[in-house]
């Protein structure tokens, strides 16, 4: 059993390094008297060993006492070391220095004995100071270890805080992006309304003037003709404004990049989440897990899907029964990714389906009817399609399909 233990201690000591040593020092430390006693034991051992070995040497064999002094000083400290020196000196003087069994010292042995005392003192001093520095070192190591542990903990904490902060930042960035999008859409709406309204005002006003010129006695045909030309001019201008808006979405260099449409939908639902909650609308998604990436302009597709969802939400306004929007994705013929946005709202008749996509067609009180028209332009710019159909269970469903091999089509 003991042997087995002994075998195991070796690797343990090696692996553990300096730490057990310091713990051992801690164990020895306990009491002042115990340390002095330990010194006594060392000296006694050295004395007995020397006594049994003395007959082998022709001169006083004193070296084992140095070992006792060093051991006493090492384990017991300075006081224990000095005690060992005194004890050793007394014992050596009495038993080993001629004349033996007397405290007297021969003149011939004086220098030898003095050398022993000095050497013992030096050994005690060296040993105890080495011990002190070793202890100081181990304390320093322990403290260092403790500080490393503390620092590691601090770093872990600050790392967690950083992650929290980063998360909060990302959240607010996304919120900002949502707000700026909503605002830019609102601003766009106002500026479109204004830009289109000016030429339309001119058209209507010229129209009234034209009637006046024609109903004069006699009718002022030349003025009426002039006025009609202006009507044509201003009407054309109004349509050019719209063309320009469509062109913004159509011809603007599309920033196409590979994207995951499901991810995009998740972002959109995140954008409108608060709005949906406020209006008591539930948004569900049924996203196909096996969709390939498509190459598209992320912001524009986001606008389209956002527009479809917002339209759906507006359509739900008067339908108190079940307010729900379902966004789903699927593959179609291995060639297109299809996004469908369904709502359980007021819906529309089969006849008005195509009208939906005409500029200025709107069923909303505050809409100007450009959203779907622009959305369809965006779909076409991606070689895709946007269409609508009534939902069998009431409401409407809009489909957006984008080909996955579109880049090949472009080339």
């Amino acid at each position: 059993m003991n042997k087995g233990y002994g075998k195991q201690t070796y690797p343990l000591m090696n692996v553990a390094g300096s730490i057990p040593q310091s713990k051992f020092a801690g164990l020895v430390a306990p009491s002042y008297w115990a340390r002095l006693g330990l010194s006594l034991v060392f000296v006694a051992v050295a004395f007995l060993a020397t006594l049994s070995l003395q007959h082998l040497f022709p001169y006083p064999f004193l070296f084992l006492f140095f070992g006792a002094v060093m051991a006493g000083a090492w384990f017991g400290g300075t006081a224990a070391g000095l005690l060992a020196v005194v004890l050793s000196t007394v014992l050596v003087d009495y038993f080993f220095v001629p004349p033996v069994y007397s405290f007297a010292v021969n003149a011939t042995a004086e220098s030898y004995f003095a050398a022993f005392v000095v050497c013992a003192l030096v050994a005690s001093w060296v040993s105890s100071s080495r011990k002190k520095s070793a202890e100081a070192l181990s304390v320093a190591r322990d403290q260092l270890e403790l500080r490393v542990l503390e620092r590691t903990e601090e770093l872990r904490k600050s790392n967690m805080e950083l992650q929290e902060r980063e998360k909060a930042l990302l959240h607010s960035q996304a919120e900002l992006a949502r707000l700026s999008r909503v605002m830019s859409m609102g601003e766009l709406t106002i500026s479109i309304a204004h830009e289109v309204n000016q030429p339309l005002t001119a058209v209507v006003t010229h129209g009234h003037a034209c009637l006046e010129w024609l109903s004069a006695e006699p009718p002022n045909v030349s003025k009426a003709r002039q006025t009609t030309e202006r009507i044509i001019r201003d009407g054309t201008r109004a349509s050019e404004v719209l063309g320009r808006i469509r062109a913004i979405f159509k011809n603007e260099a599309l920033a196409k990049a590979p994207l995951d449409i499901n991810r995009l939908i998740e972002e959109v639902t995140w954008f409108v989440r608060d709005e949906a909650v406020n209006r008591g609308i539930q948004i569900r998604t049924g996203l196909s897990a096996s969709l390939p990436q498509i190459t598209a302009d992320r912001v524009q597709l986001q606008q389209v899907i956002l527009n479809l969802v917002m339209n759906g939400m507006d359509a739900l306004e008067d339908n108190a029964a079940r307010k729900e929007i379902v966004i789903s994705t699927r593959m179609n013929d291995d060639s297109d990714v299809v996004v469908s946005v369904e709502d359980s709202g007021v819906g529309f008749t089969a006849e008005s389906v195509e009208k939906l996509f005409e500029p200025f067609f709107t069923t909303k009180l505050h809409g100007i009817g450009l959203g779907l028209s622009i959305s369809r332009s965006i779909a076409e710019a991606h070689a895709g399609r946007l269409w609508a159909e009534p939902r069998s269970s009431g409401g409407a469903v809009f489909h957006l399909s984008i080909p996955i091999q579109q880049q090949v089509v472009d080339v």
Partner: protein
Amino acid sequence: MFSANSIVFVVDDDPSVRDALSNLLDSVGLAAQTFGSSEEFLSSSRPEVPSCLVLDAKLPGMSGPEFQEELRRTGIRIPIIFITAHGDVPMTRKVMKAGAIEFLTKPFQKGELLGAIRHGLETDQSRRQEQAVVSELMSRYEKLTSREREVLELVTTGLMNKEIAAKLGLSEITVKIHRRQVMTKMEATSLADLVRMADKVKSQSKS
């Protein structure tokens, strides 16, 4: 339909709207003068004839409501008809409270615009007539001597010649002569007429 020499001012930053308004006004026999900005209007010399202002509420630089305030501050009294592409209630309330004739949303119908313009021109015309009458009376009043003005003051409070004479320390004959002089200079046909004139003069010199 309108007084022949009246004129409608149009301030709108959109040239096609200006052009259309001027064509419509032309077709109903109204003279129009158009401006692209409120600053342009202010720096122009305008004829002193019955007029009104058709003003776009949304203008670059000084906005419509600001322009209205500026006109009021500088004492240019002209009826204003606001036109706007997207008017909001607070703005409408504000300009109507500040005395605008009408607030129309573009595109407007002929009837509402011309109705408002007619109302504006009539308002301006009667203001101008009233103004002309008052300034004529003022110039007549200026011709009275200080003694005659005292007599006029007392006559219009309803005092008899005898009482006036006592108050001013004059003979009744002298008061009678002054009184006839006042009637002549003010071109009053009766005492009631004179009292009315005196009221107008009084209110004018007060304001």
